[in-house]
């Protein structure tokens, strides 16, 4: 399977939205390569015509009426926010 180099580690860290230092990137090359090389043993398994597992017990996905079941709890929703104003989450400016 694919090779993990430093550029790949940096790209993945960016996708995962985790800032890493150049030293951490170097360390992660070895760690991730080791784990991915180990999981590559799955290539030995013939999965031709095998359905991917989607659930444990054979049961239909439950449904319910498409109605509002709760709401009017802005205080509870925002109470743990690191920064808020009048029940709004405050974030750094995103539109110039």
């Amino acid at each position, binding site marked *: *399977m*694919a090779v*993990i180099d430093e550029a*790949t*580690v940096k790209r*993945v*860290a*960016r*996708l*995962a*939205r*985790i*800032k*890493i230092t150049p030293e951490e990137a170097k360390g*992660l090359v070895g*760690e*991730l390569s*080791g*784990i*991915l090389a*180990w*999981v590559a*043993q*799955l290539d*030995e*398994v013939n*999965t031709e015509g*095998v*359905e*991917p*597992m*989607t*659930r*444990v*017990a054979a*049961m239909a*996905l*439950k449904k*319910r009426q498409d109605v509002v079941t709760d709401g009017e*709890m802005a205080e*509870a*929703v*925002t*109470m*743990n*926010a*690191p*920064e808020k104003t009048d029940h709004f*989450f405050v*974030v*750094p*400016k*995103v539109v110039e």
Partner: protein
Amino acid sequence: MSDLTKLTLADARDGLRAKQFSATELTQAFLDAIAKANPALNAYVLPTPEHALAQAKASDARLAKGTARPLEGLPLGNKDLFCTNGIRTTACSKILDDFKPPYESTVGQNLWDAGAVMLGKLNCDEFAMGSSNETSCFGPVVNPWRRTRAGRLDNAKLVPGGSSGGSSAAVAANLCLGATATDTGGSIRQPAAVTGTVGIKPTYGRCSRWGVVAFASSLDQAGPIAKTVRDAAIMLRHMASHDSKDSTSVDMPVPDYEAEIKKGVKALRVGIPKEYRVDGMSKEADEYWQKGIAWLKASGATIHDISLPHTKYALPAYYIVAPAECSSNLARYDGVRYGLRVPGRDLIDTYENTRAAGFGREVRRRVMIGTYVLSAGYYDAYYLKAQKVRTLIKRDFDLAWDKVDVVLTPTTPSPAFAQGEKSGDPLAMYLEDIFTVTVNMAGLPGISVPAGLSSEGTPMGLQLIGKPFDEATLFRAGQVIEDAAGRFPVPQMWWA
């Protein structure tokens, strides 16, 4: 009065009903024990004495009036992965900071509705990712067991297993009557095995996942860690429920498991899978496995060799599925709606700073692996492939159920190891779950019951794996093993 904390949950229940002591006395005994032991063991990350005493007082009123509920006044510990209304919940991660959920997990609510008392929040690996409780942002938990070397108690700090290491240590050290726990790859059964306690991961769907901090949603299940098989049976009955808030929870009646345990194993067909005889398994693990076979046979069970050919692929497949689902679940920690925020130049920089500072090393590693295997071009090669292998693992068991009713294996390849012994090598740590992880991959129930002590004087467990939703048989067979092997209380309370 003798030490109330040494009672089993069943005996404490009977003692309360017989008015031998009050729920307040019982609760206070545990709070005192926690205050004394926690500096040494670090099992609780947040004791909640006021909350516990208020619940105990209400329980005493009900006990006096004769309106006691099934778990009335019984003090339990609650893994910090379960959200608690108005009480800090962190999943032992810095990223949740001082998060106080405005709601209670369904499993927790079920226990409190049954009358149980919460003593506090228990330590665990960060987001339940770990097998030694060394990844917690609150520091490691210390196993109350110590090794005996050359006839003397060794001072090396042993790990209590993970991720539910606070739960297993607290139960083993008599810091609660029983504890909630969760199991994604072995996080109930492995800690139970290395602390001489009983832990059951029920069938996927038996307990609601609502209000439990998510790790890998297709694998996560809640269950109890307790002192005895009977106690685990009592607790599971009151944790399990159908819940409209979790679409994967099943609408099935929950049996009275406590009534099942005395039924024995006469004519029960027990499978012994040859693939569990792995390289690196300790001689003692094998010896107790043979003893387990003999105990069940002596009680009337029949023993059958079986084959589960895809066993060796369960762990590598798990280390694709679990990180993939964790990277998706943990995307919610963005520093905007709750938890830690580390400001940056702009929004993306704020996300990146927050997640770098908030997640510990193992969590960052797994989020990165998960992000990689789900990234463009790799989905089919990794995640889809692993889910297909999962179907084959489940099929192995489906075929085995034609021949046997339950499967017996060791719980772990070896007894408790020392702190730091495996934390530098992720692959060595992952191998801790080699016997437990197949059960999560197939969604089956599994129980770990103490089997005996290693040559170092530390506990070893046996695992029983059951058919979907047949936890009752696991309790029956587990009771037979407990009756034969005996119970294994910690011999010396060196921390007190």
